[in-house]
C-alpha cells in the first residue's frame, strides 16, 4: 500500500520516539502479574524468586502454594510506590512437594485498586517445563454460500410452469363457457 508523503514523514520521525507515559495515568485497574524470575525448574526444598508487578501499594502480598487458600510460602511487605514498580520475593518450595507442575498463587486481601486479583506462576518441581504449545489448529477460511440450490431452482421452474398452466386452464374454461350451441332448424313437412 502506497503511503502518503505526510504519513511517511510522521512514521519515520515517530519510529525513533520513545513513549514515556504520564505517571498520573498508570492503569491501576489492571490484572496483576506474578512470574518466576529465571529458571522455573526447582528441586523440592529449593528456592525460586517470584517477580510481582502491578500490585497496589499499601497491602502485603502473600505468595501461597496451589491456591488462594493454600499454605503461605512468603509475604512481601506492602509496596510503597505506585503500580509501576516491580517487587521480588524469594520463596522456598516445601521439601515434601512431589515432583511435577505446581502453582504459586498471590493474594492481596484489601479494597484498593486491583487488590485481590489473583496472580499465578508455574514452578516445575524436579522436572522441566514442557515445550510451549503452538496455536490451536483452526480453519483459516470462512464458509461462503453457493447461491440458489438445485432444489430452489427446480421449485422456481415448477412454480412458473404451474402458474402458466393454471392460467391457460382458466382461460380455456372461460372461453368454452362463452361458446353457444346453434339453434336447431325446424323441419318443414
Amino acid at each position, binding site marked *: *500500500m502506497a503511503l502518503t508523503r505526510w504519513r511517511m514523514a510522521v512514521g519515520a520521525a515517530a519510529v525513533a520516539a520513545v513513549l514515556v507515559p504520564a505517571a498520573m495515568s498508570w492503569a491501576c485497574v489492571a490484572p496483576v502479574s506474578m512470574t518466576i524470575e529465571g529458571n522455573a525448574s526447582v528441586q523440592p526444598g529449593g528456592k525460586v524468586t517470584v517477580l510481582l508487578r502491578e500490585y497496589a501499594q499499601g497491602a502485603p502480598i502473600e505468595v501461597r502454594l496451589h491456591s488462594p487458600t493454600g499454605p503461605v510460602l512468603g509475604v512481601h511487605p506492602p509496596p510503597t510506590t505506585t503500580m509501576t514498580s516491580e517487587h521480588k520475593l524469594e520463596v522456598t518450595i516445601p521439601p515434601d512437594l512431589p515432583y511435577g507442575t505446581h502453582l504459586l498463587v498471590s493474594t492481596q486481601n484489601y479494597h484498593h485498586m486491583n487488590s485481590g486479583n489473583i496472580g499465578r506462576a508455574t514452578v516445575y518441581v524436579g522436572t522441566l517445563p514442557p515445550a510451549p504449545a503452538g496455536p490451536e489448529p483452526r*480453519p483459516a477460511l470462512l464458509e461462503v454460500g453457493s447461491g440458489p440450490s438445485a432444489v430452489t431452482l427446480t421449485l422456481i421452474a415448477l412454480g412458473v410452469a404451474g402458474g402458466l398452466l393454471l392460467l391457460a386452464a382458466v382461460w380455456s374454461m372461460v372461453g368454452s363457457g362463452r361458446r353457444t350451441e346453434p339453434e336447431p332448424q325446424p323441419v318443414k313437412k
Partner: protein
Amino acid sequence: MTFRTLMTGAAAVAAAAVAAMSGPAAAQTAMTYKHATFQEQDAKIERLTSAVRMSRDEEAPARGFIGTADMAVHPDNPRIIVGATMDLRSRICYLTVSKDAGRTWNHSKELPGAGPYPYCQNTTAGTPVVSLEWGSNGTLYYARQAYGDGEGPREGKASIMLARTTDLGETWQTTLVENNRGQSGESARTATGVSGLAVDTSGARDVVYVGYSRSHPDAPTGSPLRNPAVMLATSTDGGETFGEPVNLNERSQVNVTIAGQSVPLIMRTGFGAPFMTAHNGTLLVVAGPEFEQGKAPTAPADSGSGGSPGSWFHFALPQLIARSTDQGKTFTISPMSPPRYDGTGATTGLKWTPKGGENGTFVAVHAATPPTSPTSGVADVVVQRSTDDGVTWSEPLAIDDAKPEEFVTSFYPQLNVAPNGRLDAVWQDNRGLADNRYHVRYTYSTDGGQTWAPNVQVSDQPLNFNLGISWNSDLRYPPGVASANQYAAFGWADARLADEVTQSQDNFGSVAQFSPLPTTANTTAPKLAAAFAGLVLAGVVLLVAMQVRRRGGGPAPEPVTRRQATPAR
C-alpha cells in the same frame, strides 16, 4: 436501577470479613456475582477461525498496536469490517479495514484526520482510546484525541477531532470538536479521549455524540477546575459542526451515604470515560464514580496503608448513567448499578437490541466485584438490561461462566450487536492460565441478554502479557468485537511476534461464524434461467395437450337430411 443510598452495611460486612482474617494467614474468600442463565442460543457457532495479523501493514519492529477496541461491520455489506486502533510508539491512530469478513486486513489509504493534529495517543487504559461508528449512507465516523508536536498527554493542550469518510478511509473530512491549541494560563484546558462515540440515525440527519474528558492541568489545587469533567459534544448535522460541549459533572446530583455522611458522586474520568450509545432519540452515557476533590471520605481500614486519603478505589460505589432524550440538552443522572468495586476499571459496553422487550433492550456489560467481596480485584463481567428505554436497569448477573473457586479475573469487556439483534460480548480473563497469560473470551445472546451462550475462548493461544509495550507500560486496552448476522469478528493486542528486544505488539483477530456468508457469484441469472425453463415446460405441456385433443376428438356428427314434401292425392 433507581436511585439508591450506598449501604454502609455492605462495607461493614466486608471490613468485618477482613478483620476476621489474621493478616497474611487469612484465607482469600472470593465473592462473585450470580451467573446469568447459560444455554444454547438460536444461533450456534459453526466455525471458529485461526487468528490473523490485522496490523500486517506496519513492519517496524518497535510497533506497539493496542488492539481494536472499537470495531463495526458495514451496515450494508457483511464482508466489510472496520476497526479503530493506535500505535503506542508512533502515537498515530489508524483505521484498519477488512473486505473479506476478517480474513485479511489493511490500514486505510489515508490516516483519519492526518494534518496539523497528527497524534492521538493518550495514557488512558482499559478503555477504548479511539472510537468509530457507522452512520447513514455509508458514512463512517471516527473520533480521536488530536495534537501535534509540543502538545499531548504530558504537555497538555490536546484537542478532540471527528473524522468522517464515505470511502473506507480513502478520503476524510474532519471537524475539531474541541480545539485547545494555543491555550495558556490557569484555565487552559486539555482533552483526553475518545472513549465514547454514538450516532443516532433515526432522524433526517445523523446526530453524532462525542464523549471525552477534559482537565485543566495548570489550575491551582482547590480550584473547581480541578474536578474531573466528563464532556459530551453534540452535532445535529452529521458531524459537520458541534455545539458547545457539556460537562455532565456540572449536572450530577447523585449522593451516597458513607459512614453516616452524604457524599456527592460525580462521573470519573480517570483511565478514560465516558461510554455511550444512542438509539431512536435516547442517549445513554456511562462512567465510573468519583468523589469531588476534597470531599472523599476517609478510607476504611480494609484498604491498607495506601488508603488515606480515600478514593473511589476503596469503596463499593455504583456505576453512573446519564440519560438524555433531547439530543444532549438535558440529562437525568443516576446510579445504573448497585454498589460494586471496579478494581479492573469502569469500561462499559453499551448497545441497543430489538430483542428482549416490546421496545427492544438497552444492554450494558462491565466488570465488577460485589460489595461483599473482601477484595476489590477479582472481577466478573456482568450484564444489566433495560427494557424501558434506559430508565431502570436489572440487577447485574455474571456472563462469564467461570466457577467461583477458579478465582478468575474477567476484565475489559466490549459489546456489539448484529442487525438480527444478536448480542456479542468479549473480554479478557486468566481462566486456567498462569505466568501472566490471558485469553480473549466470548459469549452471545439471541434473546436480548436474558440468556447467554456458554463462554468460548476465541484467542487461539494465550496472550503473553510479559512481552509487548502495553504489558510493560501498563497501558492496556479492551479487545473488540464486530457483529454481522453471519459472524462475530474479534480483535485484540497480541505480542506473539515480539522478543525481549523489539517488544513488538500487533493486532490479531479471529472470527466465530454462525452461517455462511452470502455468495459473491451472480444469483439472479440462475433464477432467471429457472423461470425461463418453467416457461418452456408450460409451453411444451400446452402443445402436447392441444395435439392430444385434436387427435382424440368425438365421432363426426350425422348429417341432417331433409324430407321432400309429398303432394296430397
